[in-house]
């Protein structure tokens, strides 16, 4: 028997809608589960004290500091490279074999799993260049990891700047670089900031690439050669060793809030400032 299209339509909508709802519910459940278990442990003492007894008690202050220092260093390294690449691709060259190679390389880099970045960072930065487990090794490794994101978002932001802006600048006698510096980049800034925030969100949650390059020291770092422990690594070690469930949950809650906060800001900037040149 052939089912009337009207009913297959209803059936399809119900199934597709059900699948979508299931997806959203599972993902929301994960966030709410962690927050519900973890938030009771998050007190001012928890946020402002150093860990004691390998993290079994005490707070996570140095871990929070490490969680933000490491990505900031990575962004400081990757930003000039990423923005430079994007400016070159959009303003200084046409589509050629060369730009295709650069794009292919960027895509490949984006697809490499974090454990491979961890292996590479360990052998190259930690062992061969002798930086040891440190903020510097971790920052350089993360910089490579976020480079594709920064290149892509910057490229998109620059392409969204209308050509008339450049033409006006040229007609006033500005050179290409002056135009990039005073017209293109300021107008692409919100898009670039979105890229930075997305990279920050990804770096904060990263574990595999960080644990083998930045190490897991619980001290407050005093130089770039000091090892740091991020919240994701701290949480993983606490959970794996079964050191303290309460502190593990608390760390996870702070971690999730940090990532959500960063991503929400990125989204807000994107909607508020990007794509308004029409």
């Amino acid at each position, binding site marked *: 028997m052939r089912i009337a*299209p*009207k009913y*297959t*339509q209803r059936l*399809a*909508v119900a199934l*597709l*809608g059900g*699948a*979508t709802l299931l*997806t959203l519910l*599972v*993902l*929301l459940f*994960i*966030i709410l589960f*962690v927050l519900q278990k973890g938030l009771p442990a998050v007190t001012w003492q928890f946020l402002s004290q150093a860990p004691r007894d390998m993290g079994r008690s005490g707070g996570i202050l140095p871990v929070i500091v490490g969680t933000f220092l490491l990505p900031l260093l990575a962004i400081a390294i990757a930003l000039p*490279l990423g923005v*430079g*690449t994007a400016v*070159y691709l959009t303003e*200084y060259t046409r589509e050629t074999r060369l730009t295709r190679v*650069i794009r*292919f*390389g960027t895509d*490949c880099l984006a*697809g490499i*799993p*974090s*454990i*491979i970045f*961890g*292996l*590479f960072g*360990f*052998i*190259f930065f930690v062992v*061969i260049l002798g930086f040891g487990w440190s903020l510097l090794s971790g920052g350089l490794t993360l910089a*490579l990891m976020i*480079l594709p994101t920064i*290149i892509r978002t910057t490229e998109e932001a620059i392409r969204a700047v209308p050509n008339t802006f450049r033409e006006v600048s040229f007609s006033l006698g500005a*050179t290409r*670089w002056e135009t990039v510096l005073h017209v293109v980049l300021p107008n692409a800034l919100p898009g670039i900031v979105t890229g930075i925030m997305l990279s920050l*969100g990804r770096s904060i*949650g990263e*574990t*595999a690439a960080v*644990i*083998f390059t930045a190490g897991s020291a619980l001290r407050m770092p005093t130089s770039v050669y000091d090892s740091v422990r991020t919240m994701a690594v701290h*949480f*993983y070690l606490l*959970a794996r060793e079964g050191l303290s469930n309460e502190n*593990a949950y608390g760390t*996870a809650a702070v*971690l*999730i809030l940090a*990532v*959500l906060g960063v*991503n929400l800001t990125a*989204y807000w900037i994107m909607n508020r400032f990007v794509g308004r040149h029409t």
Partner: protein
Amino acid sequence: MKWNSETIVRQVLTVIAFSSIAGLLLIALFILKEGLPFILHVGPRAFLLSSNWDPANGHYGIYPMIVASIWITLGAMLVGAPLGVAGAIFLNEFVPKPAMRLIKPTLELLAGIPSVVFGFIGVMVLAPFIRAHLGGPGLSLLAGALILGIMILPTVISISTDAIAAVPSTFREGALALGATRWQAVHMVILKAARSGILASIILAMGRAVGETMAVIMVAGNAVKIPHGPLDSVRTLTANIALEMGYATGLHRQALFATGVVLFIFIMILNSLAGLVLRKKVRRS
């Protein structure tokens, strides 16, 4: 003077533009430099096809890890691909625009949940559930595949959504004008037009699943053996590297880099495949 600074800027930018390629080559070079001599030393057959992983006694066979990685990835695709593609279709075709404005950012926020958190949920919620209702140790191939399947959902949804949104609206309008229902328009016209983009999203998600480390370490159990069923404990290639990297030295460390080489090759094949699928689409349109 002006002319001079322009040339300098251009040259500096040309050099900078190669940073991502340089990074990629450095990574490939150093992983290969550490791993390849080892593979040649013990022989590719003994490394890839032996089931005996016992670094303390000089046995380095990663066959069980290869099998586990493949099964766990296929399992994850079985969960993630249908749900993700269904979600993308529904969000694009059947959800009114204002609701989309709420759902899309929510999904993108969820894409940022760190993998250790997924792993922890697997340990605290999923594994006990499997142990209680299906038997086995709980930390298993099944738990790993389910968690990975959920983790790749945002990837599948966001890339498939882009592919479906890129289908010209005239296609949709044409089908509807001929009297098709919305669902007929979707599965007879829009899905055909968006096919390669959807396929690419699934292949890219596969790459993510093969490479995922922390969540898998926490939920898959990590026993080095060839799984006989979905409830068995397994160790993937990524887990093997991350578990032993902390203390490995000498040949053992090289063996882990060699595992990295195998993983790297898997990923490169998947990425090139996705690129190929997408390029074909571009050429056709």
